[in-house]
């Protein structure tokens, strides 16, 4: 046969493609492998993972947080990448549920793999899944409880939610302490979702339970040398200006001198310029000066002489928080003291946490920013605690905006699954099979939770299902005792937004992966020798 009849190669050298069944298989395998990998971390008894960075073997992270695990593993499978992406978005948007979203997507894909084996077209499956998703979402909205009216109530629920979140993390033994911490700091934000203004300081030493929320604000910096360690009724100027050597910014200017005496003169002038700037700053009538940039010895000396305490090199986030807390504006020019709003604090003092010296601002004008001090015996523990706390804070901050809750511990999943099954009975055609598959995938989540806790999962979940059929719609899994019980009494409550995000994102990603029947890989970019 001549060359003309051979299959035409149209892609570049090194590019590969996978078609139809092959493509689908590779998608399923990749996505399911990823979700299996992460499913063991689900639930209160889920396990942690060690992540080791490829460049530095000593630098390892121990975590239970889905988004953190997924963002650190190197993946080339495109479907798995889509799952990683949804987990990232869930993290950005809501902050928690990053594991369950991937697990649900994985379970949905497992179910659809079975359906495809039964010769059901992917588009039919998608149709069924969409229908099922809509029903589940409707049910979810129905069972969600709104707590926006009563503020006291809200606080109680926030704490419960925080406890549910922390119970799956390293903070479990002290979840009550941390839940209080989280709720307290979130309520200070007064509805803002800007988590930046909650500062989390990690200090090794001590125990996790010794963590506390600092009344006021703590800056991880030191006071200038020889300056008082305690300032009462502070007037604070928060600035962002260069206090090292204040060069002239006019382009192309440079110093050219022909004798050392002239050099000395110019140097003198430079110093004077700096002193003048310092004088202007002092003229604001302040006793504390905080700068984002470095403060050199000369200005520091000047400030000390004039009874102004200076703090150098507060980073950008620190400066913004400070200006939030003290109510002062961030200043870069100093010609009009009358126009500048100064920050105030009743007391600024240097304190010791562990072995480190820190500066505490208390009695501030606007207590909307605060600091949580985390203590723990190792860096890994602290890092994990910070991630867990961040998850909790993120969810709570969204909760304040949208205070709706649903029951946790697998209860909600079962309710949604049963709503879908109910509706499936009235739907004819292959869509019905897809809907049932969706319901099964949802039921898998409590199964995995029970499995991870080491119980007879199938037995427990079927008991759970039966109790729901009997009308006990508040029942869920009690993983501490391995029983089915009333979740409402246990107080395991989750945010409606987390569940909604999980449901929507997982089904969107599943749909996206199911729609694919062809994968084309470009040749990897050639790494040059340089």
């Amino acid at each position, binding site marked *: 046969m001549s*060359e*003309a009849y051979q299959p035409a190669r149209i892609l570049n050298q090194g590019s590969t493609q996978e078609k139809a069944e092959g493509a689908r298989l590779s998608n399923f395998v990749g996505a399911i492998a990823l979700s299996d990998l992460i499913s063991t971390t689900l639930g209160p008894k889920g396990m942690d993972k060690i992540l080791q960075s490829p460049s530095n073997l000593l630098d390892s992270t121990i975590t239970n947080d889905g988004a953190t695990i997924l963002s650190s593993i190197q993946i080339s499978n495109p479907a798995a990448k889509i799952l990683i992406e949804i987990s990232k978005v869930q993290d950005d948007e809501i902050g928690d549920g990053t594991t369950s979203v991937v697990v649900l997507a994985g379970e949905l894909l497992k179910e659809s793999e079975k359906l495809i084996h039964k010769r059901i077209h992917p588009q039919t499956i998608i149709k069924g899944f969409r229908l099922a998703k809509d029903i589940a979402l409707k049910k979810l909205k129905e069972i969600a409880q709104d707590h926006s009216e009563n503020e006291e109530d809200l606080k109680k629920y926030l704490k419960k939610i925080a406890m549910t979140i922390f119970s799956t993390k390293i903070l479990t033994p002290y979840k009550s302490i941390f839940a209080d911490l989280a709720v307290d700091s979130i309520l200070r934000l007064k509805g803002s979702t800007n988590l930046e203004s909650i500062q989390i300081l990690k200090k090794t030493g001590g125990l996790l339970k010794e963590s506390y929320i600092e009344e006021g604000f703590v800056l991880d910096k030191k006071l200038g040398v020889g300056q008082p360690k305690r300032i009462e009724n502070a007037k604070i100027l928060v600035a962002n200006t260069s206090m090292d050597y204040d060069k002239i910014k006019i382009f192309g200017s440079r110093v050219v001198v022909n004798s050392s005496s002239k050099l000395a003169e110019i140097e003198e002038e430079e110093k004077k310029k700096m002193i003048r700037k310092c004088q202007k700053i002092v003229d604001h009538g302040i006793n504390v000066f905080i700068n984002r940039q470095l403060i050199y010895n000369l200005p520091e000396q000047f400030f000390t002489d004039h009874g102004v305490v200076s703090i150098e090199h507060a980073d950008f986030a620190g400066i913004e928080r400070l200006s939030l807390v003290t109510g002062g504006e961030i200043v*870069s020019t100093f010609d009009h003291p009358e126009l500048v709003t100064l920050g105030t604090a009743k007391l600024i003092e240097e304190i010791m946490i562990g072995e480190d010296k820190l500066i505490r601002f208390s009695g501030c004008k606007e207590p909307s920013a605060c600091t949580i001090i985390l203590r723990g015996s190792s860096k890994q523990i602290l890092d994990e605690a910070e991630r867990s706390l961040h998850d909790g804070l993120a969810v709570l901050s969204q909760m304040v905006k949208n205070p709706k809750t649903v029951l946790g511990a697998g209860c909600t999943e079962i309710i949604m699954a049963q709503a879908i099954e109910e509706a499936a009975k009235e739907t004819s055609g292959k869509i019905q099979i897809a809907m049932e598959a969706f319901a099964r995938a949802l039921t898998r989540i409590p199964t995995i939770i029970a499995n991870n806790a080491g119980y007879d999962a199938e037995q427990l979940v079927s008991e759970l299902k039966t109790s729901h059929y009997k009308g006990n719609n508040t029942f869920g899994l009690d993983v501490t005792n391995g029983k089915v019980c009333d979740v409402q009494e246990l107080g395991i409550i989750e945010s409606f937004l987390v569940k909604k995000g999980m449901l929507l994102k997982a089904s969107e*990603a599943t749909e*996206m992966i199911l729609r694919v029947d062809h994968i084309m890989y470009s040749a990897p970019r050639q790494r040059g020798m340089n």
Partner: protein
Amino acid sequence: MLRYDSSGKPFIIIRDQDQKERLTGSEARKANILAAMTVANLMKTSIGPLGMDKILVDQDGEVTATNDGATILKNMQVENPIAKLLVELSQGQDDEIGDGTTSVVVFAGALLEESLSLLEKGIHPSKISEGYEKACDIAVQHLISICDKIEFDKEDCSSLIKAAKTSLGSKIVNQYTDKIAKISVEAVLAVADLERKDVRFDLIKLEGKTGGTLGQTELIDGIIIPKNFSHPQMPKQIKNAKIAILTCPFEPPKPKTGHKLDIDSVKKYKELLEIEQNYFKKMTDLVKKSGATVVLCQWGFDDEANHLLLQKELPAVRWVSGTDIELIAIATGARIVPRFSELTPKKLGKAGMVTEKSLGTTDEKMIVIEKCSNTKTVTILVKGGNKMVVEEGKRSIHDALCVTRNLIKDNRIVYGGGAVEISCSVALNKASKEIKGIEQYSIRAFSQALLSVPIALASNSGLNSLEAVSEIQLKQMKEEKPFFGIDCLSKGTSNMKEQNVFDTLRGKIQQFLLATQMAKMILKIDDIIRPTGQY
């Protein structure tokens, strides 16, 4: 390649022929056609509301999942020259019409496939070309004769929405077609000049944002810039804003000519210092004096200037991109000012509201400029569960926008769902009987090729494709109505008029013309020379 001179000695026409791969005559043609068919077959499964998507992994491992023909082909890293031509073909359709990029490739592939059997009968390629040309003419004539007109105006745009829905039906956004079609049409109508039948696409901005679902995609009457105010304490909301747009940095000037400024005495040092301090004051004073209440700048701010702006109560945004600047200038009626000294009250733009909004837990901020005074400018904020969905959503909305624009330019439509293709095919079959000679064969082949799109449509929808298509053919012939097509979504009727599935006439004509042209071009090639062994 060897030729022999008069004395029988061979001489070489093409050098280094051992290093070149060469195919000639019918072999070359067949290789070309095969390559084109491979590409077309690849695209076939993406046609129609139940078509599938493709995942493309690029050189750096980034994933794109899409259903858009032009995007698939563009990112495919094609090497074969014929396949490259098809990529161009789809690009051509995309640039000109913006929709139907998949069908055009499938159709071109089918034309070539049909010509394969004609070639085997011994018909000369240029005869085939001629026949195709003629057939294309007849088909276009027929299209014009069967087209319908839709009516719409600013108030009643339901017919436009229906057209947009057809375009969106095959994409991942199809569960929210109603909403997204409405948004697309409203966006186009907002900027359209119905009298001149012109739509300025640059006034519609597509901004993507991960988070939420595609259903939360919204139309914003104004412009969004993904930036924040330069100083955290600037006011977050400005009503009745007067906007100054600057393309000069709030920094001491940097003359472009090379120069050196030497400081050799204390006096000079002091002078320079004075000048520097004054620069900032002068800049902010000039801005303030012009009456501006918001400053948008293409460049950066010096710390000191930034603070002065705060002190003078001038909220400012730095590093605004050039395209955004232009858009804002058009929308607010502002003039882009390259120097502070040229800033006058007349050159300021006006907007009803400028706000800084934050989204999600990561606290990303964006600035929304609403109620612009001058031209209508709108932004479509596309949301989705992940990056890939958002990107695909943007592409789909772009297609829908194009369709709507085309309808505003030319409100003639033809029916979709394969209805026009079948109708043209029937018409061509009829016409071919009155044409003498070899052309008849080509015309029939063309008519057969036309069926490729409805066949693909039917088989993607899980129907028995040949049966379904022939059934429609019969129905069309019997009732002599061109609006019967493939009932992809099992709605129970093949009447596309009732299903509201239609395409623009312009788009269809363009598809036929471009595909025919491409097929003719490929048929004309009878020699492929390419160097081998370079890998």
